[in-house]
């Protein structure tokens, strides 16, 4: 069962603020999503088959050979603030 507390906890972990009147609707929606996942789980017949590895691909590796990294101008292109080649951590107000 999904409870009101679960929703508040997930919201906190996701760094989302939730209004009081939204909680009930979210609880109901979340319960439906979980139930859907449970339904799919029961559809997996072979117990030995891992649900999360349905593609059955194994061992896709990269060789340990250096390829030149990206130009740091490109890496930093979307940054907001920062200097001397660094990203800047945005200051957050404490809430």
């Amino acid at each position, binding site marked *: 069962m999904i409870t009101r507390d679960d929703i508040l*906890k997930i919201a906190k*972990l996701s*760094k989302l603020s939730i209004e009081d009147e939204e909680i009930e609707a979210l609880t109901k929606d979340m319960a439906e999503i979980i139930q859907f996942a449970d339904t799919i789980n029961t559809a997996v017949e072979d117990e030995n088959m*891992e649900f*999360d*590895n349905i*593609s059955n*691909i*194994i*061992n*896709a*590796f*990269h*060789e*340990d*050979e*250096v*390829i030149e*990294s*990206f130009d*740091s101008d490109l*890496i*930093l292109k979307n940054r907001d603030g*920062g*200097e*001397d*080649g*660094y*990203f*800047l*951590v945005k*200051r957050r107000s404490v809430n």
Partner: protein
Amino acid sequence: MSYELVAGLETHIELSTKTKIFCNCTTEFGGEPNTHCCPICIGLPGTLPKLNKNVVKYAVKAGLATNCSIRNISKMDRKNYVYPDLPKAYQISQFDKPLCENGYISLSTGKNINITRIHIEEDAGKLVHQRGDTYIDYNRGGVPLVEIVTEPDFRSIDEVVEYIEKLRLIMKYIGVSDVKMQEGSLRCDVNISVRKYGDNDLGIRTEIKNMNSLSFIAKAMEYEFNRQIDIIENGGIIEQETRRYNSDLNITESMRKKEDADDYRYFRDPDLVTISIMDEQIQQIKNELPELPSVKLKRFVEDYNLPIQDAELLVKYKKVAEYFEEACIKIENHKVVSNFILSQIFRTLSTETEKEDFNILIPPSYLNELVKLTETKKINSSLARITLEKMLETGKPLSEFITEKHLQGIDENTLKSICEKAVLANEKAVNEYLNGKEKAFGSIIGYIMKETKGNADAALATEIIKTIIS
């Protein structure tokens, strides 16, 4: 009432692969900020990580060298948490199927420290705090790590220190990491609790995070041990929490309490496919492992007849151990070779790094030649010492310094007259010696060595002098 310390360790070791764990950027230490980066290791959406083949191989090596069993089927998971050094807001790690499990490292007392698991994961970026702001360099982001987790088997700080030293040496021997603590390529989290002797239940533990120096670890544990005892003795209760060591004040301080303990919501990383390792591959990696330090130590003591302390010092540096073995070929008394290395050669190498690199000018065959001459009594030990010094300075073989004249030595009659001269010239020392001051004898011998330019047989000279003055 006396208390017992109970501790467990989580050790992060950076692997020395050429490339990062999920992309082909270099793992080189340092560099201008954000120049060892690509869309994968700065976590841009839509990129596809691919596991580094050597990361798996190195981790399996680490597991085999610490007596772990290796999983045939393994996978990568996402560990979710929000922190600026982690651009994806999750770290790719391993949760319930680590590559290696159930190993141990034996301490010198014979006690085993059990290793619960070894898993692979990516390192985070580096935060730089300046002028009240925080900046990020992602060069280290995505560098491969192994995390080695022990059971709470430690009962003293000494055991922890010995374990870390042993672990470091093993990783260095098998070549999976440079384990440079000052560069942060080996970092430890220590779980620590106390209980009264005789209690079977574990006390409430605290965790001291992210220490990269043996002396800090020892000091932090000492402080934390006493802090917990103080609380209990004053009727308080230990709070389960994460703490950090403040080296300026030599204290541990609280970082976060259990109530805001992390909920990592681990789940399988759908971008990374299953890792499968066959038994034959594991066996092949096992065959490639070099002789491990513990095995080498045992062999040095047994085969070369060395005292354990000497053997430990030789084995501590892989290159020194190799040099020693080559210098020992066809030598009977291996202790002589070990003595030359540990005293005279080590004196020229002041730092640990210099001993590790062991870049000395003479090859082991030169030392071997010198020791052979002393074994056949063709030269005495003080001449050998002087010659070795010259060899170390110049890199030249001993034939440059030892002449035919040296090899013939000084005949007994000549030595006898020099000894007589020495007794007359060192009246004070002779009297002191006769009055029981053993040490005074040294200066008489020193005089003879000076007179003969180190060519005299010290044992014979001692005998002669004792006959003269008795």
